[in-house]
């Protein structure tokens, strides 16, 4: 039978200061873990949530991103009527040629960032159904009007509805604010593609084309056709794949974050080990008594291990609570791939909370293991002698 848990809980409470300090160390490590993972989750979400499950992105062959791609008008014309592309009820083809350009914009607090200005045609709203205009209206193609992603509003100058936004070589009126379910379009400004082409003096080039697949269409067939047709000769992939590759930023951060958290955890584990060793040392007589009464050595070890676990998991829960305020906080991050600023929100997901608790438990087990073993290995006679 087991040594009752209340013995461990009360023993933890009796040495209040020591428990609090060790617990505090663990709580901080868990808090760091949660913050970093929330950053990664937020970044990941912002990037990968951008894609549509039934969209394909077409780029020049060899291009890794829209930034380094160029597509000519005749290539676009040649692909427009392929059977795998969805059509609107009115007959319009769901093919959106796009030209994203990095333009410098000024931050509200000072300083400037490269922001993606995406030249699009009105069909873009149909091809990217996640994008919704929540305030104002869509821009008018013949004038310098733009819609601004919600993630930029308030963080950059002149991004509110009705303002005159300056970027590129001219002035643009903000006529609408858009959301995109947290994806990277929310960090962009959208304007008419011809105006953007003129402004950036890109001639008649597009950077990429987004195609929406017709229901039941063969994606692979479309991709092959786009590559093999000599009039087209472009590379295509699903948006899901495209944005997954872009998430390299988030992945780098995840690795870095995990390394930091693990190393910090090692420090906390050493601290916990010290505390547990001290606990075992000061309770040697108790251990001897319990063993003498007939509790098996394993029961003693389990008891101390549990004590360490209880301490660690409780501290972990506190750490999670400490880190919680960061949930939903928005910030921007430099997207190394697109050379532009990406707005994202920290996301403390349920998975992160579970992972954090497990992390705390592992710290508790690691810190308590050796001291618990020592408690088990003592001979009863020696333990009792220390009274």
């Amino acid at each position, binding site marked *: *039978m*087991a*040594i*009752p848990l*209340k*013995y461990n809980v*009360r*023993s933890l409470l*009796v040495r209040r200061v020591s428990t609090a300090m060790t617990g505090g160390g663990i709580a901080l490590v868990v808090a760091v873990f949660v913050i970093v993972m929330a950053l990664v989750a937020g970044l990941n979400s912002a990037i990968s949530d951008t894609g549509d499950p039934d969209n394909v992105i077409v780029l020049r062959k060899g291009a890794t991103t829209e930034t380094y791609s160029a597509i000519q008008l005749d290539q676009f014309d040649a692909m427009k009527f392929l059977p795998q592309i969805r059509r609107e009820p009115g007959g319009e083809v769901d093919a959106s040629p796009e030209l994203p350009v990095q333009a410098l914009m000024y931050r509200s607090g000072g300083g400037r960032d490269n922001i993606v200005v995406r030249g699009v045609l009105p069909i873009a709203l149909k091809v990217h159904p996640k994008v919704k205009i929540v305030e104002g209206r869509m821009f008018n193609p013949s004038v310098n009007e733009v819609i601004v992603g919600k993630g930029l509003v308030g963080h950059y100058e002149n991004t509110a509805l009705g303002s005159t936004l300056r970027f590129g070589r001219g002035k643009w009126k903000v006529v609408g604010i858009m959301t995109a379910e947290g994806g990277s379009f929310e960090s962009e400004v959208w304007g008419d593609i011809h105006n953007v082409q003129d402004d950036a003096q890109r001639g008649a080039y597009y950077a990429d084309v987004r195609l929406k697949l017709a229901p039941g269409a063969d994606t692979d067939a479309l991709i092959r056709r786009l590559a093999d047709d000599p009039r087209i000769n472009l590379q295509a992939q699903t948006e899901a794949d495209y944005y997954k590759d872009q998430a390299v930023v988030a992945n780098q951060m995840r690795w870095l974050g995990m390394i930091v958290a693990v190393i910090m955890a090692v420090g906390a584990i050493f601290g916990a080990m010290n505390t547990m060793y001290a606990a075992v040392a000061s309770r040697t*007589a*108790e251990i*001897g*008594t*319990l*063993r*003498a*009464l*007939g*509790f*098996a*050595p*394993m029961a003693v070890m389990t008891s101390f291990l549990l004590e360490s676990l209880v301490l660690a998991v409780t501290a972990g829960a506190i750490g999670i609570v400490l880190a919680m305020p960061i949930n939903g906080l928005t910030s921007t991050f430099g997207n190394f791939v697109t050379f532009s600023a990406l707005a994202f929100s920290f996301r403390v997901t349920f998975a992160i909370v579970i992972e954090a608790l497990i992390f705390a438990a592992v710290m508790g087990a690691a810190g308590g293991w050796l001291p618990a073993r020592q408690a088990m290995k003592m*001979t*009863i*006679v020696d333990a*009792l002698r220390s*009274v």
Partner: protein
Amino acid sequence: MEEKYAIDLEHVTRIYKRDEFEVRALDDVTVQIPAGRFVAIMGPSGSGKTTMLNLIAGIDHATSGRVAVGGDEITGMKERELAGWRARHIGLVFQFYNLIPVLTAFENVELPLLLTHLNKAERREHVETALKVVGLSDRMDHYPRQLSGGQEQRVAIARAIVADPTIIVADEPTGDLDAKSAEEILGLLVDMNRQFQKTIVMVTHDPRAERYVDTVYRLDKGVLAGVEPGKRGAPAEAAARG
């Protein structure tokens, strides 16, 4: 179960290694203690009495020789088996009470019962009975630090009897008590022996103890120096109920 000998030690030797030195705590000791007796083991410091007690209680292993307690051969038992055996057959009383400070008197007495299959209600019943026997029913929820030395030892005795062990083993039970409390405790032990037929083996320095026991075993330098009858019969202060 009526066994001829509650405790049977045959040519038992216990050697400790302290760094490079060998200490012969017990040297070829043979002792047979009948059941139902209240005996004392006495002798000067270093005579091996605590060692002998530890062997009887199953918390130490003999280097050579045979140890049988309550009819069970415990000589070769492995630790895990021994732990279970102790829980069933031995009740321990220590000089410094060895109560768990973070548990109440009730919870301390309950500890040995956690090693049995009794359910919560049954355990409660046993604990209450044991505490009544030692006269501490009104202190059930007190923590050890809230009790006097004598009271703590009584809780310890309650703990020792609560699982109805075959043998009670006591190591200097009065060593840390004042005269009055010491007499009370000794009286309590006599009651255990008389009323509940418990075999009690007690290691002690206390000369008063001779008045309470049936037999005195004297050890000197790890060897059995003599066996004498105790001076039982002197008025055991039964009035010593806290």
